């Protein structure tokens, strides 16, 4: 291919391919991220115009400071019991993740995905929402199920695709579903649920219901058309929906710049659609709680959607099938300037004089034992490949409400 310019007197164009700042072997450095002091971003009225949320969409809303205390107008002033419960749920998620990840490595299931470092998002948001509100999550919001009291035993049985799997062995591990817990069925086709969530919210408004809806998406899949469709429909119909973007910096091996994060913030996408937008320190339990409450208040007041970018870091690989040391420095998580969400909330509770290292260690021990015992029980119902699974006959059910003749015939052909 010739590289000679066709018109030598014109400046030559160059194709830009974004690259992350650091690759394996480099020393990670996040000094380019300007971390504001907690309380620096003012809290607007819920009736704010989208264009007036510019600062909130480009800075970071933070509450918890290095002194482990809450600061500024975004301090949600949450009661201690809620904070303790949040801490417990985050620790539970972390233990659950560790157990299931190990189970995959032991060959007990095919696949698993952790949310390490991102626990505050699902857990704090669950605390800020009403239990009846509807969630359209991705595969990294297992914290919603833990917080909403979905049985961990059922989560594990789903991961094992065993005879107690509520989804009858039909779904890849972690693609849970529970209408009762307001947790929409997860799909591997990314972003599709984002615009479906807007439809659910429209339906709730259509019926004069009082429940709102929340949806989550990763930084990577904001590049899908469904993301932009969701924003258009949400803005047009003022849907009572909270549109969350979890920017954990990595989409498998592609850094967030490949989704367009270098040129603007993901939160700022909302402003262009007329949707008030906030960017929050996603590792700050109090800040995540506060912005969610604010967005929920907007939705409940018929003021429409809110876009929230949760700025966080995916500490582990994308999934059990991923090896992040191939594309990013292994010590990047340690250099992350926003710390660890569990550690920060723990220190806050200690600073309040409501918690201690001793109590924390005891809680960790209790949770570890509970998760271990639940896993043991789950395994009595089988693990993937153990032969203990839903009846194979059920494979043909639920394609339609009533089984049509051609599927019945195929089931007969299989002899079940």
């Amino acid at each position, binding site marked *: 291919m010739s590289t000679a310019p066709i018109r030598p007197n014109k400046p030559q164009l160059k194709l830009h391919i974004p690259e992350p700042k650091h690759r394996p072997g480099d020393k990670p450095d996040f000094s380019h991220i300007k971390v504001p002091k907690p309380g620096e971003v003012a809290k607007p009225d819920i009736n704010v115009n989208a264009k007036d949320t510019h600062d909130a969409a480009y800075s970071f809303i933070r509450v918890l400071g290095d002194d482990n205390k809450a600061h500024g107008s975004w301090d949600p002033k949450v009661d201690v019991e809620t904070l303790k419960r949040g801490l417990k749920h985050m620790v539970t998620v972390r233990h659950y993740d560790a157990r299931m990840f190990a189970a995959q490595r032991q060959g007990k299931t095919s696949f698993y995905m952790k949310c390490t470092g991102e626990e505050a998002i699902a857990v704090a948001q669950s605390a800020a929402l009403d239990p009846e509100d509807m969630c359209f999550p991705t595969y990294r919001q297992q914290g919603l199920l833990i917080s909403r009291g979905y049985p961990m035993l059922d989560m594990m049985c789903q991961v094992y695709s065993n005879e107690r799997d*509520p989804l009858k062995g039909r779904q890849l591990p972690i693609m849970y579903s*529970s209408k009762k817990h307001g947790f929409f069925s997860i799909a591997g086709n990314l972003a599709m649920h984002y615009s479906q969530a*807007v439809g*659910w919210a429209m*339906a709730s408004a259509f019926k004069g219901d009082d429940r709102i809806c929340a949806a989550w998406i990763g930084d990577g899949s904001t590049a899908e058309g469904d993301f932009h469709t969701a924003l258009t429909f949400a803005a047009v119909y003022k849907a009572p929906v909270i549109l969350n973007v979890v920017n954990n910096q990595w989409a498998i091996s592609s850094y967030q710049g490949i989704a367009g994060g270098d040129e603007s913030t993901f939160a700022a996408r909302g402003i262009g659609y007329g949707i008030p937008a906030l960017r929050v320190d996603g590792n700050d339990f109090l800040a995540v709680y506060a912005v969610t409450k604010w967005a929920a208040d907007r939705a409940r007041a018929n003021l429409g959607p809110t876009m929230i970018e949760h700025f966080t870091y995916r500490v582990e690989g994308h999934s059990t099938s991923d090896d992040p040391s191939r594309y990013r420095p292994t010590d990047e998580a340690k250099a992350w300037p926003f710390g660890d969400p569990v550690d920060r909330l723990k220190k806050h509770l200690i600073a309040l004089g409501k918690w201690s290292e001793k109590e924390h260690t005891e809680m960790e021990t209790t949770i570890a034992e509970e998760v271990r015992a639940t896993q043991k029980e789950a395994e009595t119902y089988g693990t993937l490949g153990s032969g203990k699974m839903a009846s194979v006959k059920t494979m043909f059910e639920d394609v339609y409400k009533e089984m*049509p003749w051609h599927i019945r015939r195929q089931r007969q052909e299989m002899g079940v």
Partner: protein
Amino acid sequence: MATMNMIQALNSAMDVMLTKNPDVLIFGEDVGYFGGVFRATDGLQKKHGVTRCFDSPIGESGIVATAIGMAAYGLKPVIEIQFADYIYPAYDQIVSAAARLRYRSAGDFTAPITLRSPYGGGIFGGQTHSQSPEALFTHVCGIKTVIPSNPYDAKGLLISAIEDEDPVMFFEPKRIYNGPFDGHHDRPVQPWSKHKASEVPDGYYQVPLGKAAIAREGNDLTIIAYGTMVHVALAAVEDTGIDAEVLDLRTLIPVDIESIKASVEKTGRCVIVHEATRTSGYGAELTALVQEHCFYHLEAPIERVAGWDTPYPHAFEWQYFPGPGRVAAAMRRAMEG
């Protein structure tokens, strides 16, 4: 009872369902105040209110996605994709979500949406307003595909589709919205008012999904068709004088295999007709089904008449459209076989 063309019958079906079920709502491009580019939703917004029948942004994937979310909530959305040719942006939502939701959630969530969309040629719409994409949907398990051929069926089938608990693709043969076009494009257009099936009850009734109709009884040959091609087939029967039975499938999935078997076993000969392109078209599935179920009754190879495997060319409407001449030729081949 009133005399209705197909548009009026579809409008009546939606009117009946909006009245009967407060969870039914209609949206799509231009369907609200204006009443749709083909007038199918004319007057519905005025009669039932803006939240029951409203305009959507030009975003087919968003129309389907929001309908899925509404259905998961418990509503019965009826959505219009303005032309079937525009459905592809929504394909992912239909295939990966609407069709899969019941299965993947083990019945916890469902997506009983009704998606109406005008399809087919014969209107000089060029390649972006003439396509027949039904086989892209019959291939997908978890959704039903319905195509009416006359006003009476259109209303009854649409009511059944809206009341169905699974997602239904409801393709409307737009060439016969206003009259039973039989493919003889050089002859005067016939209005529906001269056709028996234009007598449509004003109120609620169902035509069941999954049941074919016999458009013409005959003994020597079976023609399997749907949509506009039912009328083209009837014209070909008239033109050839062959005593053919014309089976109007009405529902493609789940297909009425019993009616197909009964007819082909009686006649021993079969011609399958559709407007869509031939290769991997729904006719291929029908051919396979007839072969599997009726092989020992067949006295001749199964014939297929379909659109050519090219895009629908604007200036060559009648060279492309599988008209009565091509159907008649296939019938004669089947009779000689």
